[in-house]
């Protein structure tokens, strides 16, 4: 099986995610995949859900907080600026309170709650989570590539989605029940018009947003989740563990991509240093192991490059390696 073929066989998979431990090449693969798809004429948005995003670095352009920026025709990249999003959001809440009650100042107690809430550790993640909904709901692209956070964080993100999901369903149900009592009283009093419950309307909107976001993460039809591994023991063990956990959250794992593989031609070099030869042999060992564990779920082996993958020419080279079509 090859990566190019997976994309050709499953054109309905529009949400592409790369997961893996930190520093293994998730951003690189996200960028390269976006580049490849764009060069096939697809409109692609690659965006980062990581507060420490590095899409700006890989594309060598400052895109932080600037919305979707066109990199080359059909290829757009976006880094969410959670901080300014939160600030704007707080301001929106304040304005709403002032407008609703005709106040010129936010009551002290309320203001301190607004500030305390924004300082919560989960706030940044929640804000990004919420922005992702705006991005995917807005539409306009054939593919959405999520440049994900490292594994532990991604798991947190997933569990957050399912906790939010349960939380919102419970409160919405409670609010609906409250509405029923209100309606009952209104019927007894023979009131014709019952004011719309704005809180219920907000809750239903929040519920829709959360379920859209968490729904995508577990959608077998439309989502493909790829794990990035490198041929090293620790990474292999962690990846297996993580894959198990991801399966528990119903994330559709579509395959594994091996990064940082030392190229075979190294061996032909007559004066290959012992150090490199040992690394090569070690890697072969783990590559065999990877093949025996993941079998034909291994979709690509990507060479270690002679330099960093930054800038479009390097991304293009890497995309060629990733999507080199062996099988199909």
């Amino acid at each position: 099986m090859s990566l190019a073929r997976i994309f050709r066989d499953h054109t309905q998979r529009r949400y592409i995610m790369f997961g893996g431990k930190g520093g293994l090449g998730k951003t690189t693969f996200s960028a390269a995949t976006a580049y490849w798809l764009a060069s096939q004429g697809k409109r692609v948005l690659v965006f980062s859900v990581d507060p420490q995003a590095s899409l700006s670095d890989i594309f060598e352009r400052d895109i932080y907080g600037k919305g979707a920026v066109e990199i080359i025709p059909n290829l757009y990249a976006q880094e969410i600026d959670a901080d300014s999003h939160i600030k704007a959001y707080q301001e929106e809440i304040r304005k709403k309170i002032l407008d609703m009650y005709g106040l010129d100042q936010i009551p002290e107690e309320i203001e301190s709650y607004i500030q305390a809430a924004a300082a919560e550790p989960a706030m940044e993640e929640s804000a990004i989570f919420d922005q992702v909904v705006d991005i995917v709901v807005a539409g306009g692209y054939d593919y959405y590539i999520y440049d994900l956070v490292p594994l532990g964080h991604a798991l947190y993100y997933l569990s957050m989605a399912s906790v939010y999901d349960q939380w919102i369903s419970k409160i919405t149900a409670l609010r609906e029940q409250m509405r029923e009592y209100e309606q009952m009283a209104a019927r007894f009093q023979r009131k014709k018009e019952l004011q719309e419950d704005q809180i219920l309307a907000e809750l239903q909107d929040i519920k829709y947003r959360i379920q859209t976001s968490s729904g995508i993460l577990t959608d077998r039809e439309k989502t493909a989740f790829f794990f990035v591994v490198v041929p090293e023991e620790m990474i292999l063990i962690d990846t297996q563990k993580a894959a198990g956990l991801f399966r528990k959250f119903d994330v559709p794992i579509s395959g594994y991509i091996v990064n940082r593989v030392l190229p075979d031609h190294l061996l032909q070099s007559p004066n290959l240093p012992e150090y490199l030869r040992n690394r090569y042999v070690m890697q072969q060992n783990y590559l065999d192991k990877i093949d025996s564990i993941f079998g034909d779920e291994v979709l690509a082996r990507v060479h270690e490059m002679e330099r960093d993958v930054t800038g479009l020419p390097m991304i293009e080279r890497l995309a060629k390696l990733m999507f080199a079509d062996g099988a199909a």
Partner: protein
Amino acid sequence: MEEEQKRTDWLGRIGRSLADYIYGMATHESTRFALKTRGSMEHLFILITMGDLLGVPILPPYYSLRLLPYVVPQISTWKRRMLREKDLTDALA
């Protein structure tokens, strides 16, 4: 013609008052109960969405903030009530 109109109005009013009276006897209690239940639920609702205001940590503040504008008027009565409420063990002690 005008006389006729007046009489119908008057009869209509009596009819409506009578209906109100009967409805009142039959449903006043139920209405009170429904509103009271809704009131208690309102407090529960604010507790689980705005618990942070009382120091009860509740997930997730990002979305709580969106509801904040709507509960602003209730917050002071709610806090008073939550802090006043005692359970059975208080009475026994």
